[in-house]
């Protein structure tokens, strides 16, 4: 495969960013938007072509005789060489998951580009201020995210990881005149950056012991008893992980160094993927424009953490502990976020917590994946869910955006009964809800079912727990659905026209994504993605028992939601009054933000920052100031030497010369 197309996939968004960023102000809003969208459309075609080529061409570079999908490095340009093997390169890496991510990212990004043409203007068709900037940032984000998924080594991934963080920061703070948006963008940046500190340390630890950043060398390591992970070349430095396998594996504080490295890397993933306790930025990130939430904070960037763990999965397999940590964090987060989502008023927040919960599903699925259970079903399920979730969650967010655009508020209390006015939005949103709730035949059913199967194989406890979360998911989604589209509509004030469906640029992405959500479940995903590249027979592992139970749970939850929220009634009120504490905690997101505020403001600011500031102001600045004062004083002191009299000059001259000689003589003799 030639490098032209892969290079273009990265170069076009980068070029669009630079071009729109520099020249955007000079062109009309519409032109900038259309150029950005066309650029992304081109990338979409190229990425589809690449993925298609990878999966279907049957090229021996991509698929082995035995039908095993191979890792393929399209190009790998050395950028910074430390030692022979420790090299930072920039390259393009193709394997099943990166090809899948190319499809996901370009699809969603293109939809969002198209959608924003309609969304980023008011009801009179006037474009928002900074429209061109918005498209420039979208291009920057797409570039960074594509660069992240095709990274050939962990350091390239880290570079682009930070770039997506930066573009996310820029887009959350797009309405930079709004205080809440500015603080949300700062919060997102700081929290994820804090997590990335762990990531960086993890990378350094890993590369210190293995001497490489390369994913191929890092993951193509024979774990005991499973020698044929990817294409193992036994002559290459498999000593890489021999370091960790030998009985003398380095230990640190009771755990092996590999565990530490993996847990630290996972910390970076927790930050980006909003796992507890580093989830606090994601709900606030909803301050950004809604298309951004759909693209970055639902479909692509937030799954980077999952992608990271999947990318290093063979490494994680070597350390049971690290996978258990992934599972536990995921399971707790999933439940927590689902609980909180039940008690939010802002529809974007509900979706945000739902996103957290669904990403946690993927994490759990990775955490419970073991080659010995159903040949690594969990890994496949996780990637499958990532794929379907990206589609239906983007659909839900874009639908929510349409509602917000029509109503002008994020609260469901301002909506009610919109199904009559906005039929397109209503139907597509309903499909999204059914998909996320896991109703057959929508896509979410298949992927979630496989996750639950994988959990069931691993441990009954995790299975029951995650099924419960799945039930909660169906419940809060339908609560939201009913509150928005049912109930009695608000009276429309005189002189205002009724809310209505949106322009085609906004409807089209909704319809396309809804169609994908309807049929994506039937994609034989296992044929393309599995943990070791071998095609995975999906039906052989399909568990009808698990499927019917999860379906039953979802339906029950939907019925409960219907009873409570179909029409305005007193049931929710009663429920709330029966368990006031639970409502309070859920509504206030279990007071995590307050806890963080307490820790940062009270403990860190007072305990660490203030003394440091004092030290800086008095000791460091004081030293500098006293140097300056001293210099000035000395300057004043020696001033009389320059008297302007030649006699004096000559005196000083001769005294100087004699002293020079005399002192030296005294010292020598």
């Amino acid at each position, binding site marked *: 495969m030639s490098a032209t197309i892969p290079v273009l996939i990265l170069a076009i968004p980068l070029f669009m960013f630079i071009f729109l960023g520099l020249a955007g102000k000079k062109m009309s809003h519409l032109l900038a938007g259309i150029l950005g969208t066309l650029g992304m459309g081109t990338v979409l075609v190229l990425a589809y072509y690449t993925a298609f080529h990878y999966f279907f061409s049957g090229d021996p570079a991509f698929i082995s005789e035995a039908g095993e999908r191979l890792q393929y490095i399209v190009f790998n340009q050395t950028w910074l060489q430390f030692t022979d093997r420790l090299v930072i390169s920039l390259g393009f890496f193709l394997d099943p998951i990166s090809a899948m991510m190319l499809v996901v990212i370009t699809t969603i990004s293109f939809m969002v580009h198209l959608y924003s043409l309609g969304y980023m203007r008011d009801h009179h068709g006037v474009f928002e201020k900074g429209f061109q900037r918005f498209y420039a940032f979208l291009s920057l984000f797409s570039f960074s995210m594509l660069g992240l998924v095709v990274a050939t080594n962990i350091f390239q991934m880290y570079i682009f990881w930070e770039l997506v963080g930066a573009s996310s920061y820029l887009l959350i703070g797009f309405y930079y005149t709004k205080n809440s948006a500015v603080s949300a963008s700062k919060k997102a940046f700081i929290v994820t950056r804090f997590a990335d500190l762990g990531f960086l340390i993890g990378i350094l630890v890993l590369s210190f012991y293995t001497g490489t950043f390369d994913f191929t060398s890092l993951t193509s390591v024979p774990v005991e008893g499973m020698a044929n992970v990817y294409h193992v070349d036994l002559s290459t430095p498999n000593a890489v992980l021999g370091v960790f396998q030998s009985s003398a594996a380095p230990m640190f504080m009771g755990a092996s160094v590999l565990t530490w490295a993996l847990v630290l890397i996972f910390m970076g993933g927790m930050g980006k993927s909003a796992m507890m306790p580093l989830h606090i930025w994601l709900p606030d990130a909803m301050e950004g424009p809604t298309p951004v939430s759909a693209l970055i904070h639902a479909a692509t960037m937030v799954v980077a953490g999952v992608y990271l763990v999947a990318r290093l999965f063979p490494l994680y397999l070597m350390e049971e502990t690290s996978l258990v940590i992934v599972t536990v964090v995921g399971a707790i987060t999933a439940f927590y976020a689902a609980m909180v989502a039940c008690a939010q008023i802002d529809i974007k927040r509900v979706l945000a917590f739902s996103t957290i919960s669904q990403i946690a599903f993927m994490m759990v699925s990775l955490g419970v994946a073991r080659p010995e259970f159903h040949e690594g079903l969990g890994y496949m399920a996780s990637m499958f869910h990532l794929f379907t979730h990206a589609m239906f969650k983007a659909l839900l967010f874009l639908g929510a955006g349409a509602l917000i655009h029509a109503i002008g508020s994020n609260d469901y209390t301002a909506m009610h009964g919109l199904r009559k006015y906005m039929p397109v939005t209503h139907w597509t949103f309903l499909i999204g809800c059914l998909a996320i709730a896991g109703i057959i035949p929508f896509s979410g059913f298949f992927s979630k079912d496989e996750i639950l199967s994988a959990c069931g194989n691993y441990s009954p406890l995790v299975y029951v727990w995650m099924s419960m979360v799945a039930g909660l998911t169906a419940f809060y989604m339908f609560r939201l659905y009913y509150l928005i589209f049912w109930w009695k509509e608000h009276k429309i004030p005189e002189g205002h026209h009724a809310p209505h469906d949106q322009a085609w640029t906004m409807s089209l992405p909704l319809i396309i994504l809804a169609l994908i959500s309807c049929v994506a479940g039937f994609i034989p995903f296992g044929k393309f993605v599995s943990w070791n590249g071998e095609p995975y027979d999906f039906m052989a592992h399909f568990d009808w028992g698990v499927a019917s139970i999860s379906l039953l749970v979802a339906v029950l939850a939907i019925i409960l939601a219907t009873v409570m929220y179909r029409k305005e009634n007193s049931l929710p009120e009663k429920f709330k009054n029966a368990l006031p504490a639970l409502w309070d905690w859920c509504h206030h997101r279990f007071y995590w933000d307050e806890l963080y505020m307490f820790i940062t403001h009270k403990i860190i600011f007072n305990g660490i920052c203030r003394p440091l500031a004092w030290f800086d102001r008095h000791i460091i600045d004081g030293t500098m100031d006293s140097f*300056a004062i001293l*210099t*000035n004083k*000395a*300057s*004043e002191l*020696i*001033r009389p*030497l*320059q008297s*302007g009299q*030649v006699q*004096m*000059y*000559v005196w*000083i*001259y*001769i*005294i*100087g*010369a*004699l002293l*020079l*000689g*005399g002192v*030296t*003589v005294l*010292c*020598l*003799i």
Partner: protein
Amino acid sequence: MDYSQFLAMKQEIGLLVVFLLVFLYDTFMPRSTQKGLPAFASIAMLLLTVAGCLGCCLCSCSDVVAFGGMYETSPVISAIKNILNIGVVIVLIQSIKWANGEFMTMRRGEFYELLLVTLFGMYLMISARHFLVFVIGLESASLPLAAMVAFDKNRYESHEAAVKYILTAVFSSAIFMMGLSFVYALAGSLYFENIYGALFVSSTSTMLVIAIAFVIAGIGFKLSLVPFHLWTADVYQGAPTSVTSYLSVISKGATAFAFLVVMAQVFGSLYAQVWEWMLYALIILTITVGNLFAIRQRNMKRFLAFSSISQAGYIMLGVIAYNTLGMAAMMFYILVYIFSNLGAFGVIGAIENASGKVSMDDYRGLYKTNPRLAFTMMLAMFSLAGIPPFAGFFSKFFIFTGALQGASVAIYVLVLIALINTIVSLYYYLLVVKAMFISDDECVIAPFRSSCSERLGMWIALFGIMFLGLLSPVYDSLIDLSSLSSIGMYFIR
């Protein structure tokens, strides 16, 4: 006598030809064409420089000792002479406007003749391998300068400066001669080689130490090392700006190199024992005192006088380094210093010619009225202060690197002191920038258009400031030259 020895002196002879041409032009050309003399002199000097540089680059001439061992030339020596030539060309170009002024009509030629004679003296100083030649060079580089300093005969300060200069110069020459006579008494010869040989075997005596101290004092006077520097500020202030710029860069650069040659080839064996510590003290004093005085100056020329004192201290780091790297760094430092200082003097001269203002207070708001001049001045100040990416940063960096090769605690301390002084110098260089850019006061200097020659001079200086540091071949070739040089043999600790 073997007349082919004169071939070794081709740079001196070239300079002599330029001198004669200027002299003939001055004497025989009709009065109406006399206004062309400055340009003629500049072009002649430029041709000499280009020829010298080409000769330096093209033919790989080896070291030549001529005239019974009194005269030596080598690629390094040609290189430093070429560096001086470049500086002289810029000075000449910058002086065209001034030299064509009203009161210069009768004496235009004299200025150029005197200047070329002093340059000839500096050539001799650099190439001398016998103290007699050295003293002739030193004196012919000093005495005509007094006349040049007094050139503004309508200005009282100019006379005062000349008198101060000549008095202190004579005194310092006397001290220098005394030192030399001590050396002669000890070694019985004035040939560098013979003295080196004699001192190598003899033990250090009080007389020798005093002799070295006096020699350092005599040359230190020309370099304006503290405490032999007191004439500098008055002379710089009083002299015409073109003379000041010539004094501050060419005279200083030539003497610095000659100083290195003398210290290595004559007293080289006593480096660690005797004069390293003398120089050590002088450098600390020079850098610090120069800076401390510079902080308080409001007159731009006086200010640059003290700045040049402190810069001389940095140049001396290349001598105390006492290795080929230090020598290369010193030559590079001189080259960069020529461009930076002449950039600053170019602006000062242009402003003085147009408005007669030389006080820092008058520079307030210069940015608003003459943005290009202000910008040139700013870059020159940045380069003098050593802010990257301008040439001054690299020259400071290299000279520190050269000094640190010594790798002793004392040298580390010295470099640390020099570094701290860089920060102090940053303060006063930025005072000028602040006055030009930040002050909100009324603008004193009205907008004016500087003449073509002045602008050309500033452009050349700016070019050097911006690119000398970034063009690595310049420094690399200096390193190559100095590592091959015969002076390198003397660098034994």
